[in-house]
């Protein structure tokens, strides 16, 4: 049996397997069809029905269950998450697992299409070391939103973010992993496992 305890490990292996066997487009389809439309359909339903309140409800449950270190703030025109200890990427780094060149892309790979279906876009950066931030907003709302994260500590200002500024992936008003503006591959240690 493959389990949920080490899920992030075989999930990451799966990205490499799908891409190697069926190509990058298949991996993008996997994130949308399997994860956004199937696995996480409860998230899609909540966010479509309740908007920012649904985002707060969904991530409040799932990030607590996964043991994330994060903060979030719900504003009038946006919802922001600052992730300073990603449990998923953290598991891979702690265990020296790196089969796919950019594991972090999977998040926008499923969240982006889900947000598009719900009528939102995504501003996002990740540093490939377990830190990232997200702003979800309507396409016609300004970026960055004036009401999101104005008082909460921002992950970009925390230690461990700027040290790797040359390898930060950025997405502006995006709805998919193929809309990356800058960045590179993961810089975590390669696995010998």
């Amino acid at each position, binding site marked *: 049996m*493959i389990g*949920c*305890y080490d899920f992030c490990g075989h999930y990451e292996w799966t990205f490499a397997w799908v891409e190697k066997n069926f190509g990058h487009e298949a991996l993008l389809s*996997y994130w949308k069809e399997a994860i956004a439309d199937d*696995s*996480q359909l409860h998230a899609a339903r909540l966010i479509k029905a309740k908007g920012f309140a649904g985002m707060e409800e969904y991530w409040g449950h799932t990030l607590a269950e996964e*043991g994330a270190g994060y903060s979030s703030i719900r504003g009038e025109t946006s919802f922001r998450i600052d992730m300073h200890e990603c449990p998923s990427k953290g598991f891979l780094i702690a265990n020296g697992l790196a089969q796919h060149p950019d594991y972090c892309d999977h998040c926008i790979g499923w969240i982006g299409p889900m947000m598009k279906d719900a009528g939102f876009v995504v501003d996002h950066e990740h540093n490939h070391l377990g830190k990232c931030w997200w702003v979800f907003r309507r396409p016609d709302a300004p970026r960055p939103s004036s009401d999101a994260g104005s008082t909460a500590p921002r992950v970009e200002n925390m230690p461990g973010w700027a040290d790797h500024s040359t390898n930060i992936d950025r997405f502006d008003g995006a709805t998919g992993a193929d809309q990356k503006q800058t960045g590179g591959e993961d810089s975590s240690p390669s696995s010998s496992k």
Partner: protein
Amino acid sequence: MLPYSDNKPKGAGDFYFAINATFRFLQRNFGMDNLVRYWTGLGESIYFQPVADDWRTRGLPAVAEYWRDFFQAEPNALVEVMCDEKQVRVDVKQCPAIFHLRKNGRSIVPEFCQHCYFVSDAMGARAGLGARIEGGNGTCRQTFAARNSQAPQNLAAIRRAS
């Protein structure tokens, strides 16, 4: 002993949604043959190499230890593991994945339980061991023994999940 460790004692059950959805995606888009190839490839992969190496080095006691630790870390698993000189028997009285998928009203890929055979048998092959499954759909018996000592797996003996 598990090859990878987390800072939580148990995994998050909602990840079973993604495991089930991954199987459905591969089967729907690329066919059952490629879903089986995925399962076999994962079992043979570098990802499970630490497990296979331990089984090869320490034999059946390592197999029993692995499955005890594995199910200890899966939420809502009810499992009994027995080991003698010839085999390890894993009696799954409540499969944590089927339990969680059902509890949340998810449509389960009918061939879901076959992954336990294909992944485990591929893991065991590197250690000279084979896996056989009887039952499924929430409860099953998994037997690990020397590869040349077992009859071939009868896939019809693995129940369809629902």
